[in-house]
């Protein structure tokens, strides 16, 4: 028995290791089927549970659109930068009556040194009604500012380019409303158990990261549209 015992221990550890890996993989990419079902009014209630987040959310598309994609993003995260053109082209393709995009701030601090500054810049632009313009600018030029030591002059340059009042932008950057919105979005992310970025919810159900490619995301949207004719 003593000769076999180490092999039994090794086999048990191997089995436990494989089970742990499987469990972690499942929790990291919870499939839409496995997640709880969305409510009957997805546009009104983008995700099932959790804190409400900043209100009103930054949204593109009609509030009563049958499909809502809610993204928790970090402006400095490279996969979020890659997702940006995909979501943008989907919004154009489906149009505001079918698809609604919501962006939630989830800066990964301290991993990304400029993520919070970028989130503040976008929220400050939002106070002048130009959130999406700044959102697009920051994502589309992510590689230009990612390695820069001081990003504020770059974001101020973006503010000028999108045509907002620079003085007002500087004053708003980091004001109470801006900080509160970022905090509330983060609170919502934590309440939903968001682990990283980008995390996307489709009508309240988390989309696995590997399904965020357009060829995989489109069938999911189409199937939601078929359920909500």
């Amino acid at each position, binding site marked *: 028995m003593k000769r076999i015992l180490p092999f039994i221990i*090794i086999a048990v550890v191997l089995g436990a290791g494989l089970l742990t890996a499987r469990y972690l993989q499942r929790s990291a990419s919870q499939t839409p089927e496995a997640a709880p079902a969305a409510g009957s009014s997805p546009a009104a209630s983008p995700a099932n549970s959790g804190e409400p987040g900043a209100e009103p959310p930054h949204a593109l598309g009609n509030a009563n659109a049958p499909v809502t994609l809610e993204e928790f993003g970090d402006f400095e995260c490279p996969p979020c930068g890659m997702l940006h053109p995909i979501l943008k082209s989907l919004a154009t393709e489906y149009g505001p009556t079918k698809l609604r995009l919501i962006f939630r701030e989830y800066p990964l601090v*301290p*991993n990304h040194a400029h993520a919070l500054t970028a989130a503040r810049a976008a929220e400050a632009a939002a106070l002048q009604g130009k959130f999406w313009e700044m959102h697009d600018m920051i994502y589309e030029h992510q590689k230009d500012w990612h390695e820069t030591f001081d990003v504020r002059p770059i974001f101020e340059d973006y503010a000028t380019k999108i045509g907002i009042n620079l003085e007002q932008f500087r004053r708003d950057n980091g004001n109470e409303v801006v900080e509160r919105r970022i905090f509330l979005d983060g609170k919502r992310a934590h309440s939903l158990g968001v*682990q990283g970025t980008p995390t996307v919810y489709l009508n309240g159900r988390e989309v696995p990261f590997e399904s965020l490619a357009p060829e995989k995301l489109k069938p999911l949207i189409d199937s939601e549209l078929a359920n909500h004719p």
Partner: protein
Amino acid sequence: MNSRTIRKFLVGETNQPNPARRAVLLYGVAAFVSLIGLADAIYLTVEHLSGRSVRCTLVSGCSEVLSSPYATVRGFPLAGIGACAYFVVFSLATLTAFGYKGMGMLLALIVGAMFLTTLWLLYLQAFVIGHFCQFCLLSALVTTTLTVLVIIARRQKRN
């Protein structure tokens, strides 16, 4: 005073386990420590395969390190190789603790290779990538501990 106590006093016999027994104990501890490394490496492998930015809570730089080109070897996640290595170390340490001959030498060679790899990875984090990842630092600590344990265990066995 009974005869056993007198003998202990005269010949210096103590309650300390003999070196061979101590070596077995050290290999057992090494097997346990390798489980920590295994859990860490499994977590990193799954996070790598899911493609998300891992959130560091103690130091900054997890996503920089884990999304760097050094995080993969020919498309395979380095953490996955680490998980395999820790499992092999666990198996060899367990077999050595149970008295299987020849496994101790193999264990020492593998742990030595892992230690050298750890030094290389620490260098990359410090001087090439410029960021540290807490999960990689935990792995470095585990490998260093394993190296120390294996060295002591082999010395004990020689005695």
